């Protein structure tokens, strides 16, 4: 059957289809800006790695931010660690990542700020109501790379020592006011763990044996151990490192902590009372509070126990950075800085809810915050926090921490002797040092 020619004057079906498709294409391409233009609203895209229980607190704050300022915020949470950083780096190298993202301060240099991040002008911050004087100097200085500001600190977070009051009271390791007895030295602390183990029948402390890096770095730094990296090697104090690793070996050997326990099992063991204490990040507070509401868990937190003469602990800072943009709209940039400023000025909630210590001094110096419990009990972590070594493959969830943790998991498991573990740690660090540096 022959095709009928289309009637003159009217639109042919093909032309109509082509036209519609083209129109739809133009419509779609303009979609984002068009909706903004119609509603008169600016949108800020935020990426974060707060997959833990502190993420819920941030989501609450975001809701308040949107209500108060009328700025539309689209936050996306990625799996913590490598998946997040991979996504961030790839997004930023394409120039189409989020407007603002949360990173660990220790990762700033490994993210190649020069090519992947946008420098932040001090004037912009001042215009949005922030003052550079309002941040702890030590942290503020780490936010600069090559004299340009790339990050705005949100908080300090660290490993702290949670204790189950019910269990610890039975074990007789509480002071009259219900706080944990202060111990000095490894042996005193082991005695405390033994007393707690007798009550729980399982563990003294429910350590995360997969996060060995954090514990190693805390106990190594308590002995003033340094780990510096240079062009073709590194300086690690073998004796001090071995002492720190030996603590892990003995603790697991005696059953004072689990042989194997990942993040989930660690928190669960503490909640179920299988362990009376746990050294884990302050961010787990939200989770334990939720458990307290659901099933009852009388707990509090204090600083990392003193093993080697002080209470230093491993930690880091969450910071805001602006990933590289192909283009910025003026309103978009202003709204982004406004968001950063709002979140910092309201970070009391971040401290109260998520257990982090806000970096914004007007918040931490307020009387209201000073009285906040249990934050006041571990307020000292801010001075005792120890950042990871400074080298491009180091920092939270970076390769050095990952590789060392893999070796140390073997120590907790009882498979790797401390001497062999130290050799393996050094070998792996050397391999990392020898890699060509992809950043400068």
């Amino acid at each position: 059957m022959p095709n009928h020619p289309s009637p003159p004057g009217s639109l042919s079906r093909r032309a109509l289809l082509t036209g519609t498709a083209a129109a739809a294409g133009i419509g779609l391409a303009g979609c984002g800006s068009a909706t903004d233009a119609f509603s008169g609203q600016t949108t800020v895209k935020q990426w974060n790695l707060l997959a833990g229980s502190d993420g819920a607190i941030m989501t609450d704050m975001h809701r308040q931010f949107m209500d108060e300022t009328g700025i539309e915020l689209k936050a996306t949470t990625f799996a913590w660690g490598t998946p997040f950083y991979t996504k961030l780096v790839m997004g930023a190298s394409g120039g189409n990542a989020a407007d603002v993202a949360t990173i660990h301060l220790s990762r700033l240099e490994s993210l190649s700020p020069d090519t992947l991040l946008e420098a932040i002008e001090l004037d912009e911050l001042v215009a949005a109501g922030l003052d550079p004087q309002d941040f702890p100097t030590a942290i503020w200085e780490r936010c600069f790379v090559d004299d340009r500001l790339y990050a705005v600190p949100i908080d300090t977070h660290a490993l702290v020592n949670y204790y189950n009051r019910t269990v610890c009271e039975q074990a007789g390791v509480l002071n009259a006011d219900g706080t944990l007895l202060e111990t000095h030295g490894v042996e005193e602390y082991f005695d405390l763990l033994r007393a707690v183990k007798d009550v729980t029948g399982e563990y003294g402390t429910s350590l995360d044996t997969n996060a060995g890096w954090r514990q190693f770095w805390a106990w190594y730094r308590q002995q003033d151990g340094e780990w510096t990296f240079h062009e073709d090697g590194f300086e690690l104090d073998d004796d001090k490192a071995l002492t720190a690793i030996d603590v892990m070996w003995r603790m697991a050997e005696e059953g004072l902590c689990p042989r194997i326990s990942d993040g989930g099992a660690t928190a669960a063991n503490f909640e179920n009372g299988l362990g009376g204490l746990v050294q884990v990040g302050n961010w787990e507070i939200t989770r334990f509070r939720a458990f307290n509401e659901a099933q009852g868990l009388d707990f509090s937190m204090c600083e990392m126990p003193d093993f080697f003469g002080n209470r230093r602990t491993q930690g880091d800072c969450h910071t805001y950075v602006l990933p590289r943009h192909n283009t910025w709209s003026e309103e978009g940039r202003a709204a982004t800085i406004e968001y950063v400023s709002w979140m910092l000025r309201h970070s009391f909630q971040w401290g109260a809810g998520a257990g982090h210590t806000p970096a914004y001094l007007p918040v931490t110096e307020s009387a209201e915050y000073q009285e906040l419990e249990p934050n006041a009990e571990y307020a000292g972590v801010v001075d005792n926090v120890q950042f990871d070594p400074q080298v491009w493959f180091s920092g939270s969830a970076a390769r050095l921490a990952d590789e060392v943790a893999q070796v140390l998991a073997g120590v907790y498991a009882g498979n790797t002797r401390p001497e062999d573990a130290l050799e393996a740690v050094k070998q792996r660090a050397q391999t990392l040092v020898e890699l060509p540096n992809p950043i400068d």
Partner: protein
Amino acid sequence: MTTDTEAPAAAPTAEQPPPTAARAPKRRSWLGLWFVLPFTAVYAVFMLWPMLLGLYYSFTDKSLTGRPVSWIGLDNWAEAFGDEKAWDSLWNTAWFTLLSTPPLVVLGLAFALLAHRARKLGWFLRLSFFAPFVIPVSVVTMVWVWMYQPAGGLFNHYLGEWGLGADHLWVFQEDSMASVVITTVWWTLGFNFLLYLAALQTIPAEVYEAADIDGANSLQKLWGITLPLLGRTTALVIVLQLIASLRIFDQYYLMAGGGMNLSPENVFIQYMYNSGFTGLRVGYASALSYILFFFILLVALVQFRLMSRKED
């Protein structure tokens, strides 16, 4: 059956082609190309172009940070061939393939035979054997990691009750490979099962009838009829399975690597991922991925030669 009707009728026209002038001028139609275009475009943009780009990157120091790229010739390749950890991880991938392929093929066949024979429970068996295959990898690994947990996990719970020690470290350290293999077999068996089941249904019943008349027992029928007639399917299943196993990454990364459960060993794609995405060295990771590509190509070619010789 349908073929014998056509041949005689077609023969005369083939010998006497009509004069060319009588035939309508052949219209070359490019219409077909438009139908292929969407696929071709996607294929070119997301497959061919990245492959070429990857090959180019493997000769450069391309970094994810976006700093300027410089040509470094064969440095990446030389580093890869001398990289002990890369070879270790390639061996782990091969070891995973050796461990996982035989059970996946043999059990796939065994379960297909079972489901094919079953009269009343056939639908139930088909569903049970295939169901795990449709579960996403993240769910599969999460469930299995829970079952492997040292404290309170299903396996250790029963091992403990039977007095075999409840503290076995299933997904950690050196035990992780066997655990991942077991999970993989459970998870992906359904695909081979389905291929075998489909093939079993194409074997004509007459062949078995003839064998029955000749007095063959069921073992003889299996050995003399079923297995030989499944030969081509077996070849296909083995090729697909080898390629799938050599590409092991997802479940290993989720169960035994990636910061949650730690094994000191990597599989090859994981090592590539670490070099390229975690370590930012896209150039080096590209060279590694081409090495895996050649390795898989080699395995496929060797197998192709073996299979085609057998058919001659």
